[in-house]
């Protein structure tokens, strides 16, 4: 982790990133730099392109313009001299391993227990030994406070518990970057705290995180920077206190007013 800081290579670097779905331009030139160890919160109205940006960072969507790199490596392409070679699917998969992603609807695998959900990727993707993987997965469950739920199926867990298992599942691949897409939006209010606490711990441990969230308290406490997006553009960015207390743009102001009121 400290190696990245020393090298000065940003964990995420987006320059003029454009993404279209058919005729609709969803990202209209995004410039974003996330330093290693930094926590960046993305806020903005629904449909502003926050999920799409995360999916682009994780190679789940092809970008249509600009340049995007993670830890110094271009997303989806390999540069050699003046040429950009499109990556083969296998290479794209290899790069995704180093990025963890947490979804709004958890997306745990319903046919596997909590423990099996966490063990799956290290076993199948990395081909590691079952015993090692099991020990690590158990430790991860412990870390998110769900050691006793190892044998439970997702349907037998509360939303908050499912989301904590989902975070542990992403951590099992030892990612250097974690992406969270509205991780608490699908939860009952009383379950939000337990998930945010896990994320706080993760941030405190030095994990680089890009978090789409509307939890102002979390953003205020944990985020180094808050980015406000609207209609495919980054409208405003700055430290949480500044953005929340004195938004510079009218769009950010009215969005925040609606969020609070």
């Amino acid at each position, binding site marked *: 982790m400290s190696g990245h800081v020393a090298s000065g290579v940003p964990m995420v670097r987006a320059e003029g990133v454009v993404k279209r779905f058919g005729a609709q331009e969803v990202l209209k030139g995004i410039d974003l730099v996330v330093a290693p160890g930094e926590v960046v919160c993305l806020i903005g109205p629904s449909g502003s392109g926050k999920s799409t940006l995360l*999916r682009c960072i*994780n190679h*789940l969507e092809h970008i249509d313009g600009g340049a995007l790199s993670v830890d110094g490596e271009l997303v989806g392409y390999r540069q050699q001299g003046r040429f950009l070679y499109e990556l083969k*699917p*296998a290479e794209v*998969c*290899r790069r*995704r*391993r180093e*990025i*963890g*992603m947490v*979804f709004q*609807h958890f*997306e*745990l*695998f*319903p*046919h596997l227990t909590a423990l099996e959900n966490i063990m*799956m*990727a290290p076993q*199948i*993707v990395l081909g590691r030994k079952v015993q090692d993987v099991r020990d690590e997965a158990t430790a991860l469950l412990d870390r998110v406070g769900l050691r006793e739920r190892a044998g439970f*199926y*997702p*349907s*037998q*867990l*509360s*939303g908050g518990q*499912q989301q904590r298992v*989902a975070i542990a*599942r*992403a951590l099992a*691949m030892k990612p250097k970057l974690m992406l969270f897409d509205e991780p608490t939006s699908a939860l009952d209010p009383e379950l939000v705290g337990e998930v945010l606490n896990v994320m706080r711990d993760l941030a405190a441990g030095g994990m680089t995180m890009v978090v789409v969230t509307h939890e102002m308290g979390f953003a205020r406490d944990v985020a180094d920077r808050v980015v406000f997006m609207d209609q495919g553009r980054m409208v405003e960015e700055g430290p949480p206190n500044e953005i929340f207390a004195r938004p510079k743009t009218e769009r950010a102001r009215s969005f925040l007013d609606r969020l609070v009121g």
Partner: protein
Amino acid sequence: MQAGENNRLPDPGPAAYPSGQASGQGLTVVPLRHPWRWVGAAVIAYVLLLIADLLITNPRWQWPTVWEYLFSGPVLMGVLATITLTILAEVVGISFGILLAIMRLSPNPLLSWSSAMFTWTFRGIPPLVMILFIYFFSALVPVLSIGIPFGPSLEVVRTNTVITQTFAAVIGLGLAQAAYVAEIVRSGILSVSQGQTSAALALGMTPLKTMRHVVFPQAMRVIVPPLGNEVISMVKATSLVSVIAYMELLTTVQVIYARTFEQIPMLMVAVIWYGVLTTVLTLVQSWIEKRLNKSAKNSPGVRR
């Protein structure tokens, strides 16, 4: 005792009756009557009696002959051949069907187009015609050669040494079914949400591993019931290969009655065996469905 009590409707108690009367105090419960059910039962009983009469009193059924042949060596061999043919054709049908479904859903237009064309072609050809066509393929192409088209051939074999009866039967039945299996598998795959695929890919799994470890296990619940029906139809469809004289159950009894002229009892032998096979498969199918439903409580739709 305990269970019996739980099954009974709870006594609403005095409070449920505004006038203060308790149930069972001078009140009699009259269950709803279903007079038409009795009429229906009478009609069914009459029809069953007619059938029984036809089966028992008509000596031309020749039941003794049926019993004589039911467990005879050739018939049992025929049953075995039908089972083997079903399994082989099913292996071809299901594996090819899965391949077609994956091709159909592939982002590669070449693959999805080929798959669609195959399905279109084979859905349009009756299986009987297909079996004959494959069997007589040697008339169209007498020798098979591997080599450069229009150029020299490297390896030459006579077509009818490759296309045996078994080959024509297995491939004909299998390919005819593959098109249907493909559609079943495709709808099963589509029933698994896109989010599951995203989650698997985000963990670094390749598309193929995602399919195998995440999508397929969940698609099974949608796939199994219609696939079971396909397997059961296959047992009966194997009788089509009697047109190329493949010695399965139907061909066997045909060969016997060609000699003895006891058509009806021999066909009855075949009917009984087909009935046994499909019944066994039906039981297997409902057992599998019950097991899958047990794990259905783990479906993503059920959240607490």
